[in-house]
């Protein structure tokens, strides 16, 4: 009996040890920026970590000096105040040193920004349009397009006093009816715009967000390296259901993407003429 209990405990602790890195990984994801799956998101992650450590180092110096003073220069400990109160040299040093640190930080930041703004040589273009409160994706030159709305399961659970536990809903608030399907390994150009108010299209794993503004067409790009499902949300306040228009991107290997595209094209061919509002209007006026 006792042996079986100790065996169980050992088994349990062994499992816990195995789980620890996983737990740590999960906890880390809840604490820090994602590394993402594009060259840009990795650059951004590295830049974020560098600057965070620079801040931590400066913070240790600054807070160290403050707490050293608090502990040592106390009247209760008999400290007597010195009366010096200026030094041009010291002022010069602590003006110049931060300037140097900033210049050093600005170099990789500038490089990353230039990388982000270069949308040339993209293999395909997807137009993203924000609506209150859903997204529309159009595959430019492919004749494929569809709306993407919050999944029904999440939508029922998110109603006031719905009685449904959000934890029981899979991917609560981060699931849609029609996912944006894209290929991996290709430079995709995204054009963002909006039909009513300003929205912002964000998938953290891609490394950026870009506002969708009526009257504007903004350009961005992403090259997804690994197949997978990447989730994000609207990040510009756009009215009452701002919190309920998620973004879901499914990245597929090239062949699977091609198959999906052909299938969707076939499905949409007759549907477009019926569903497209302008198409109907034109047909009727003729």
């Amino acid at each position: 009996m006792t042996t079986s209990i100790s065996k169980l405990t050992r088994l349990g602790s062994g499992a816990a040890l195995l789980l620890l890195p996983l737990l740590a990984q999960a906890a880390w994801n809840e604490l820090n920026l994602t590394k993402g799956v594009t060259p840009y998101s990795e650059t951004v992650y590295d830049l974020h970590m560098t600057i965070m450590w620079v801040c931590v180092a400066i913070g240790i110096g600054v807070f160290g000096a403050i707490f050293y003073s608090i502990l040592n220069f106390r009247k209760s400990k008999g400290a007597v105040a010195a009366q010096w109160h200026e030094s041009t040299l010291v002022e010069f040093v602590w003006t110049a040193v931060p300037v140097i640190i900033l210049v050093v930080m600005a170099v990789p930041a500038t490089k990353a920004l230039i990388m982000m703004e270069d949308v040339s040589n993209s293999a395909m273009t997807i137009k993203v349009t924000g609506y209150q409160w859903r997204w529309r994706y159009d595959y430019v030159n492919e004749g494929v397009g569809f709306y993407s709305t919050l999944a029904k399961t999440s939508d029922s659970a998110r109603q006031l006093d719905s009685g449904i536990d959000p934890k029981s809903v899979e991917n609560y608030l981060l699931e849609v009816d029609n996912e944006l399907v894209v290929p991996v390994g290709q430079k995709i150009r995204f054009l963002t715009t909006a039909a009513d108010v300003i929205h912002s299209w964000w998938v953290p794993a891609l490394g950026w967000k870009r506002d969708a503004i009526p009257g504007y067409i903004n350009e961005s790009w992403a090259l997804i390296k690994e197949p997978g499902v990447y989730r994000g949300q609207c990040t510009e306040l756009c009215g009452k259901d701002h919190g309920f228009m998620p973004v879901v991107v499914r990245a597929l290997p090239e062949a699977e993407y091609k198959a999906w595209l052909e299938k969707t094209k076939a499905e949409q061919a007759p549907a477009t003429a019926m569903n497209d509002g302008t198409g109907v209007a034109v047909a009727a006026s003729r």
Partner: protein
Amino acid sequence: MSEAAAHHDAHHGHPTGLTRWLTTTNHKDIGTMYLVFSLIMFFIGGAMAMVIRLELFQPGLQFVNPQFFNSMTTMHALVMIFGAVMPAWTGFANWMIPMMIGAPDMALPRLNNWSFWILPFAFTLLLATLFMPGGAPAGGWTMYPPLVLQTGAAFPFLIFAVHFMGASSIAGAINIVATVFNMRAPGMTLMKLPLFVWTWIITAFLLIASIPVLAGAVTMLLTDKFFGTSFFSAAGGGDPVMFQHIFWFFGHPEVYILILPAFGIASAIIPTFARKPLFGYSSMVYASASIAFLSFIVWAHHMFTVGMPLAGELFFMYATILIAVPTGVKVFNWIATMWQSSMTFETPMLFAIGFVVLFTIGGFSGLMLGITPIDFQYHDTYFVVAHFHYVLVTGAVYALMAGTYFWLPKWTGHMYDEKLGKLHFWMSTISVNVLFFPQHFLGLAGMPRRIPDYAVQFADWNMVSSIGGFVFGLSQLLFVAGIVKCVRGGQQATDKVWEGAHGLEWTLSSPPPYHSFSTPPAPATIEGGMR
């Protein structure tokens, strides 16, 4: 009434009761009204924050609908910025500037009365929208079109409330400029001014330059909504992004309007309790002026994601991170002031040190946000929410509390309850970090701001943050208790109040006479502003 008494009344000439407060032109009465008004607004805005934290306590919608949630975030910001922090600074300026520069009162006393009495009307307009069809404004305090144009009956009330608040601020700022440039006692040169006066002068110029820009922006919204113009409507040939440029041209100086006087307060309190002159007085003045100048050329860092040209993004990134330099100089100067000093830790000093430490944390996240390529990730997430609450709550509000405890004995003539003050400080400091520090994690992990409900992976830290929020909210009742107790009575305060106190306000009695300096102070009593 005897002739002597009649003469006495005529000489002082101030009525009593409600009329006294309605008609007063006295800088201390008006200062008190500003401070009390601001405290009331702090609790109204705080109650809205409690609604927000309550709804975000766990995933799912339990208490309010999304539209009302958006009204709460919008109104919380407007009330806290325009109702709590800005009037509080004007209240401090009213009380302290005449006493600090050796003047009897403000230069423009009637304008002073008017600038205060606009505020209750402005906030009646604004808060009345909570009961209107369509609800209170819910498009964010930044009022971005086209969304803000979807506001219901509340829309014109919002615009006119903002106009009134702006008019009040401009009048207050003009008064402070006129007072400092005309009413200084003989011998009080500009480079002898206490830093609180310096930072307020710079703030006043920021107000005069930036508030009219806001007034222009909201007027264009008004005509877009009601008079058929299309300044900000793409369909009519206008430009929604232009509003953001105009708004943030006001909005960025505005954040320095909220924080510069806080620098002045820290620079007054730290030398007092360190019993050592402020290190680098003149560099403090120049750093404040540099920050003010830079604040006008960094506005677009609030809108890096709107899709600006590369050159624009680079310019605003460089200018933004440059602000870290003068801000760093200030922090280093405060630390140098504490170095080799002889400190005691009464409540004002605790809040001042808390301010320096926690404001610096907000400064670090500000630096990170200024790096454009990473801002594409941080923008409009809880990381931003954490950043600006560190600089505004543990920055501006902490400095306001530090200043309140610092000068309360001077204002009332009684010492406040030190135990209560310290309890207030420790409760606030622990809870405010539980409240805002986890929001950095939420933002980095991908939680957008201004959402009433969230994906379940954000549940743990939201619960922690909400608990911190409730404790912080309750802790502020200790602040009110401390003030009420001090106003009602307590140990008689000396004129100097603090052992290490320097400056003209400490040469007056506690409480000071109705007209601060009826005759100018002796030039010998004017020390340098480093004290």
